[in-house]
């Protein structure tokens, strides 16, 4: 899969992500996480089904009582593998799809994958897994919101997550080609509201707001170092899946330190925990307990400083940088000419872009 909005780091093909943790190391880390109070485990990537020992990892998680979720593209994922994971105790499956029809979905994915996904959706339901359909929304597929909800309904999914693109990793690199117009977003949101009324609790529709188009930032990760840990394939520990890009932080590795020390003591986790780090306008703002100053990664990526207010906030002095990007779409021709300009997420492009 080569989706141009991938939240993976641009340098995913580089040395930083080589030397994956072994089965034994992962199981030890799961135990350390459990002992810290973690109850939810998301097996993500990259593509977690590329790990030959995935079933063993699920079994470790099950023994600890972790509620495990497989987040997969389902590319080349067969029913037998899903059945094996079910037997090992996997609790929940999330499968992405890029659009509601094969042609568009495969074009966005950069891989012929739609049929694999449909087969995996059916296998997931037949095996009795709760199923979440994951869709990332952007300029090229926002017109299909209704079709995607109908697809999830037909598949018998419990949930569909319609996540507007957040601009990190490859999505930030491809921002000009992915940024939707205000009209597209308004139309999508209208469909979501209508379908929620129609479906009631038969299908949960999660709509993740497009933060560039909001007046206030998202409460990113429920606060820095508050409820979430990302561990990279090579064992680096990040407060979220994008934090590794913040060059002014140092990240510890589970090969060198206990997870408990990393959580409680390490630079990366303590730097922005709580509100002591906050500058104005956050410091005196009553919203700081709701949005925690927004996203540290976005502050670093847009304003060049992870310790300032999220530039998405209308109170931020950096908000004009966001407004300019949004305005480009509104002033342009709808962006069709630019749509071919995105770079697919792939190893050669990763090495080229990160100079590795």
């Amino acid at each position, binding site marked *: 899969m080569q989706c141009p909005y991938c939240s993976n780091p641009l340098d995913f093909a580089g040395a930083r992500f080589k030397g994956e943790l072994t089965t034994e190391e992962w199981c030890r880390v799961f135990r350390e996480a459990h002992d810290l109070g973690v109850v939810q485990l998301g097996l993500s990537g990259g593509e977690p089904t590329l790990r030959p020992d995935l079933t063993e990892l699920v079994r470790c998680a099950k023994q600890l009582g972790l509620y495990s979720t497989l987040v997969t593209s389902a590319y080349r994922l067969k029913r037998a593998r899903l059945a094996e994971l079910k037997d090992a105790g996997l609790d*929940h499956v999330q499968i992405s799809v890029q659009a509601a029809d094969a042609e568009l979905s495969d074009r966005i994915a950069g891989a012929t994958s739609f049929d694999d996904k449909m087969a995996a959706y059916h296998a997931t339901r037949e095996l009795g897994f709760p199923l979440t359909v994951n869709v990332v929304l952007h300029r090229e597929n926002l017109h299909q919101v209704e079709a995607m909800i109908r697809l999830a309904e037909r598949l018998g999914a419990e949930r569909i997550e319609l996540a507007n693109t957040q601009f990190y990793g490859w999505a930030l690199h491809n921002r000009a080609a992915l940024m939707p117009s205000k009209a597209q977003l308004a139309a999508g949101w209208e469909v979501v509201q209508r379908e929620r009324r129609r479906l009631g609790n038969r299908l*949960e529709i999660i709509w993740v707001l497009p933060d560039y188009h909001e007046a206030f930032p998202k409460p990113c990760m429920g606060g820095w170092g508050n409820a979430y840990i990302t561990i990279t394939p090579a064992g680096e520990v990040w407060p979220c899946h994008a934090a590794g890009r913040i060059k002014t932080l140092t990240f510890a590795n589970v090969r060198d330190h206990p997870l408990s020390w990393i959580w409680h003591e390490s630079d990366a986790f303590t730097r922005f925990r709580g509100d002591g780090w906050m500058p104005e306008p956050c410091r005196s703002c009553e919203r700081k307990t709701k949005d925690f100053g927004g996203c540290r990664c976005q502050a670093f990526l847009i304003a060049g400083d992870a310790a300032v207010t999220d530039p998405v906030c209308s109170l931020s002095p950096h908000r004009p940088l966001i407004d300019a990007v949004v305005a480009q779409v509104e002033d342009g021709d709808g962006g069709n000419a630019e749509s071919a300009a995105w770079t697919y997420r792939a190893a050669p492009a990763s090495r080229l872009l990160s100079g590795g």
Partner: protein
Amino acid sequence: MTPRVAAKARLQWDGLRNRHILLYPEGLVALNPTAAEILGLCDGQHTVEEIVTALSSKYESAEITTDVQTLLAGLAAKGLVTYDA
């Protein structure tokens, strides 16, 4: 009306928090001891009336019926409890 904990949810003891929790995709509900006891009986084998009777024999409270109904209605709305026909 025979309630059961939905297939996507799992009721388990959390030794660290010293209480039962109900886990489901990307979330959890922390349960007080009474709620945990009620959910423990939501196995498709007990009707709502039987659950109320079982709890009434252990706890002297006039509100047991309401407590059970409120808890189950709240969890059913989240799809965490289903009813067998």
